[in-house]
């Protein structure tokens, strides 16, 4: 399983990257895109929205199925990757580059509580 060690993960197959400005970017894992197959639609959340940890914030659809995207931590949506609307296949090509949205966590320590690569691998193969 392709899993960058510097990222954090959720059991619902999101990856989370600290951006150094207090925000984190969020996408879906390579394992998730592989399970979904050819992705044809990505709907990120609206900027400015306040979200709770675990809340449904968007959706990604492949030819085969629709799958919700969740917020890994509580915070505010501060940016979305509009490029994916016209090129959803980028998620298949490089899931860890195809970020979907950025969130400013209410509590930075919440990120540390997320899964690390080993923890996610265990959760994903359970």
């Amino acid at each position, binding site marked *: 399983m392709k899993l960058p060690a510097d990222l954090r993960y959720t059991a619902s197959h999101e990856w989370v990257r600290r951006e150094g400005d207090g925000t984190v970017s969020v996408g879906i894992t390579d394992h998730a895109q592989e399970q979904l*197959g*050819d992705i*044809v*639609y990505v*709907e990120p959340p609206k900027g400015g929205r306040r979200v709770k940890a675990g809340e449904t914030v968007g*959706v990604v*659809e492949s*030819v*085969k199925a*629709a799958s919700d995207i969740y917020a890994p931590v509580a915070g505010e949506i501060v940016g979305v990757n509009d490029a994916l*609307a016209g090129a959803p296949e980028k998620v*298949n090509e490089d899931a860890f580059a195809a970020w979907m949205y950025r969130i400013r966590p209410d509590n930075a320590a919440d990120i540390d509580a997320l899964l690390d690569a080993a923890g996610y691998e265990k959760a994903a193969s359970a």
Partner: protein
Amino acid sequence: MPKTTPLHATHLASGARMVDFGGWDMPLHYGSQIDEHHAVRRDAGLFDVSHMLALDVEGRGARAFLRHALANDVDRLKAPGKALYSCVLNDAGGVIDDLIVYALAPDRYRVVVNAGTADKDLAWLEAMRVKIAPHARLTPRRDLAMIAVQGPSARERTWNALPALRDGTRELAPFHAHEAGGMLVARTGYTGEDGFELTLPAADAVRAWEALVAAGATPCGLGARDTLRLEAGMNLYGQDMDESVSPLDAGLAWTIDSKPGRDFVGRAALERSASPAVFAGLVLLEAGGVLRAHQVVETACGEGTITSGTFSPTLGKSIALARLPAGTAHGETVRVRVRDKHLAARVVKLPFVRQGRVLINLQDEEKETT
């Protein structure tokens, strides 16, 4: 334990992503189902369809039995080798299964039924055969494999891979089959493209598959098979119709032969049924998701339902098959409930795509919405 076809190990060795389909462990795709879809529209794709069941119906009374069991009439099969699409109905006029029947000789037929319904079909047909045609035989042929080669180059690639077939099938007309050396070669399929469906002894399947791959046909999984049949406007049993649905509500009126004088199962119920629903295509006109089965369609005449939906690789848009209230017309704009949205979709005549050509006019579709 899931059931496996004679090509199962070949699929695993090719890195196929496998999926359960009607109790069978089948390839979903071998990498990208969209690439596989395009391979069939543009060149040639290869499908393992050995999960479907071939049934031989032979002997005295075989013809009379099938004329009673099927909603379409096997007497339309004048020339040997001709194929016919039909539904098997229950007494209430619901669809037990849809199938292809080939007339091979007088009182000798080959029927191919769906995988998920095979046991049910066999029990249903056998119970009927005992009464209608006690001297005929109904034989399930699990000793056979089935491979579909589909696409504009499918026949040429088949002849290159299996040269012995060339002479016997060069002049084979669409919807006809040819028997040669233990193999049945039919110019049929489920993609809207030209091509062959090959039925052959299970022991020969791997060799034939590998020869077809070497000749340039692309292995395709059930994912591409679904998007191809949907673009071609072809129904999928269990999704677009089932035992609770009349063929008249599933766009299958053309498969019912209702000429007088033939008593087939379900006929009386069909003749009592009310005005049928409109079974049509939908094209999504705006971004916002993918059309899927069970989504509600809001029309001027009331609510309808999507029975199959997907993303069409050929159109680059989401499309669906839908059962809509009587009175709904082609060209109308309707709304589909997708999550919290009501997305605009155009009602179109099926099919969307046939033989590589888009048959719906997208230029006009888009103009009318602006």
